[in-house]
């Protein structure tokens, strides 16, 4: 979803004085622990020693172990840092297992020796869930990249967890299929990571969630047990559907090593249209009508506000004309895509739908892509929004879901709130505030660019956005997961009995708490492994805002 950018104002958070050399200053991302001072390294975890490293070298081979005493060294710092350059840990060890047996040996050993681990796929997550907070050992899945088999009749693909999404898409496309999820990070993200975060993406409105498309998983549990359930059966109601637990659990219950996934037919005909509208109500009308008129062929319905155009135009595509020219920009834009098997059929449906939007004054204008190049440009105006924002200054991003009619109200209320405080404007604290997202899924991305790297600005905005979301019964994380970025806000979207059961499951499956600790559940809620006694406080059932 976001390409690698280094927006951090270099002057501010250098943590290594060694960084200066020949006049070039290498700024470092701020350490995660400085953002969450209440997080303390769990003292029950052992610290890495030579005996441990020797063991890993023996099991994996010299070439599959990267060890550096200095976590800021070039060899290891980028495994410690997340894609957004927001979070950084201090691990000294990265392991590269090549098969499930190796993953099993690693976890068994770590469990016995109480060494904390963090599984890492493509490291493209936006919640800081795939990087260490302290010295957790990074288990990098990139060597496990085999495509085990693809069934041409059913479209079911069985692959290693470290397969890059785009590679998987290319492989199944040879047989006329496609992966059911699509996101900007597809050139780097791993399918195992997508599954561990239950990634959503652009085609969710058509193909649904990974909970539906994943048929089976091969998972290594914290104690080294291999749960092999790589079923290729569409239907199998035999006992509890355990794989659902691991989908979206962000590496806190085990490591996904193999995936069996159902891939839909690759569409023969794709059409894309960009329309301009004057209100969010009109967006909703257009969406409702799209479901009725385009029904089975609708595959994406994205929207963004007019400020987003400025962002992309100024920062990402200077000099390129926006495809929809008008005297002044419309308030909102929507991008809708159809995918089907017959071009003429789909075009007729789409054109008749668009014509009706124009006639009823729901859409004021629009364009339809005529070739692949235009399709790519139209998508670029949507996909480049997040990266464009990071070029104004440190950017804060939210991924919230709620009832569709409320989606844009959050942006308007946020804007009103901070405008009253005089904090929004080109020379103010929040340089830009925009809203965009997947209308069909009720998923809004609200983003703010700030004029300086000040954690307090993030906290103020966090508080407003999450409190508002909770008040309107929304989710504080529609698709990005909790990771470390939203720990403490989990109770805003889930009630105590639910959280209690989550904690019990975690304690049962990972009694020593080695799997990606400090993520999802805030330190206050860390589970004690001793005697399976749960230590959780502050769940009083009332919503509390962070201090």
């Amino acid at each position, binding site marked *: 979803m976001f390409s690698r950018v280094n927006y951090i104002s270099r002057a501010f958070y250098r943590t290594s004085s060694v960084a200066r050399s020949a006049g070039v200053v290498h700024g470092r991302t701020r350490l995660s622990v400085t953002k969450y001072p209440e997080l303390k390294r769990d003292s029950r975890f052992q610290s890495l020693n030579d005996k441990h490293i020797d063991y890993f070298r023996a099991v994996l081979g010299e070439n599959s172990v990267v060890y550096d005493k200095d976590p800021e060294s070039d060899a290891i710092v980028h495994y410690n840092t997340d894609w957004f350059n927001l979070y950084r840990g201090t691990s000294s060890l990265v392991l590269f297992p090549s098969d499930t047996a190796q993953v099993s040996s690693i976890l068994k050993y770590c469990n016995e020796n109480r060494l904390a681990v963090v599984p890492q796929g493509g490291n493209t997550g936006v919640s800081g869930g795939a990087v260490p907070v302290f010295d957790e050992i990074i288990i990098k899945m990139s060597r496990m990249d085999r495509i085990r088999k693809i069934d041409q009749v059913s479209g079911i693909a069985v692959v290693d967890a470290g397969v890059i999404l785009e590679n998987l898409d290319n492989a199944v496309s040879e047989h006329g299929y496609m992966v059911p999820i699509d996101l900007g990070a597809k050139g780097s993200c791993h399918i195992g990571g997508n599954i561990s975060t239950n990634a959503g993406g652009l085609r969710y409105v058509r193909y649904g969630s990974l909970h539906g498309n994943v048929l089976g998983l091969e998972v290594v549990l914290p104690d080294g047990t291999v749960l092999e359930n790589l079923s290729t059966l569409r239907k199998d109601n035999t006992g509890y559907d355990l794989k659902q637990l691991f989908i979206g659990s962000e590496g806190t219950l085990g490591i996904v090593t193999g995936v069996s996934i159902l891939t839909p037919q690759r569409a023969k005909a794709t059409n894309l249209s960009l329309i301009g509208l004057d209100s969010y109500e009109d967006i909703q009308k257009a969406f409702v009508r799209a479901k009725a008129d385009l029904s089975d062929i609708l595959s994406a319905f994205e929207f963004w506000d007019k400020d987003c155009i400025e962002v992309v135009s100024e920062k990402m595509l200077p000099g390129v004309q926006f495809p929809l020219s008008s005297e002044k920009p419309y308030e909102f834009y929507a991008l809708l895509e159809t995918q089907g098997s017959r071009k003429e059929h789909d075009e007729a449906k789409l*054109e008749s739908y668009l014509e009706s939007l*124009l006639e009823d004054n729901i859409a004021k*204008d629009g*364009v*339809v892509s005529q070739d*692949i*190049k235009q399709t790519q440009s139209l998508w670029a105006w949507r996909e480049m929004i997040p990266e464009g924002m990071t070029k104004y200054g440190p950017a804060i991003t939210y991924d919230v879901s709620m009832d569709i009619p409320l989606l844009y109200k959050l942006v308007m209320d946020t804007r009103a709130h901070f405008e009253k405080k005089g904090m929004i404007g080109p020379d103010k604290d929040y340089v830009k505030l925009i809203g965009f997202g997947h209308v069909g899924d009720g998923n809004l991305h609200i983003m703010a660019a700030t004029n300086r790297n000040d954690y307090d600005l993030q906290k103020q905005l966090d508080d407003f956005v999450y409190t508002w979301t909770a008040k309107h019964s929304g989710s504080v994380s529609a698709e990005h997961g909790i990771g470390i970025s939203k720990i403490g806000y989990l109770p805003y979207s889930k009630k105590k009995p639910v959280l209690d059961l989550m904690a019990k499951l975690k304690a049962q499956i990972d009694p020593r708490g080695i799997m990606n600790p400090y993520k999802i559940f805030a330190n206050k809620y860390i589970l004690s492994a001793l005697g399976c006694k749960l230590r959780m406080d502050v769940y009083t059932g009332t919503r509390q805002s962070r201090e």
Partner: protein
Amino acid sequence: MSKSLRIIVPVKRVIDYAVKVRVNPAKTDVDRNVKHSMNPFDEIAVEEAVRIKERLPSTEIIAVSCGSAKSQETLRTALAMGADKAIHVEVADDSKLQPLGVAKLLKAIAEEQKPDLIILGKQAIDDDSNQTGQMLAGLLNWPQATFASKVEITDTLAKVTREVDGGLETISSKLPAIITTDLRLNEPRYASLPNIMKAKKKPLTKSTPEQLKVDITPRLETIKVEEPAKRQGGKKVESVDDLIDKLKNEAKVL
């Protein structure tokens, strides 16, 4: 600017430029069961005609395409971009059409329609011939300004800047004339919804080579189509001696 201009823009339906082209198993052609769209240089030609029309509103733009029934899709795109009329010269078998045949068909159309200007794309991205515009100029005995990167039209003159090997060359020509477009001439617009709706009502007339009394028998025969030789992987060497050995004995360049 009292006289109204008539511009003919020939457009060709080709495999979309972003598609990965593959040779068919019989090695006689490429796999054409893929996405097609208007030849990018023809899009630029249509765009240029539409811009001229925006400056001189009485201009009439006629899009023409020679090919199978599917060529009508491409004509609809041209109409949606702003062309006023379309002519489809239907040919049963696309593969029989070659630049000379197309040029003869266009000559017949030009003699019927009497345009002031014919703007073509410099070449089609499927055959890369770069011949049709030049042949047409020869057949009609009209002046030609090819590889245009800038076009200025007045009542009777065309001033065209051409991209040539040494740089840029600006020539001035009387009308009627042939212009072929190069990449930097303009950025084609998207087909807007109102124009797509209007396009449905614009006239699209059909014709055939027989009606135009043109013989399009191909003069060239394609014998074989094959992929370029696969790129050999690079090799890593451990030492300078190893490198010298390989350069001498394998690559045979020493």
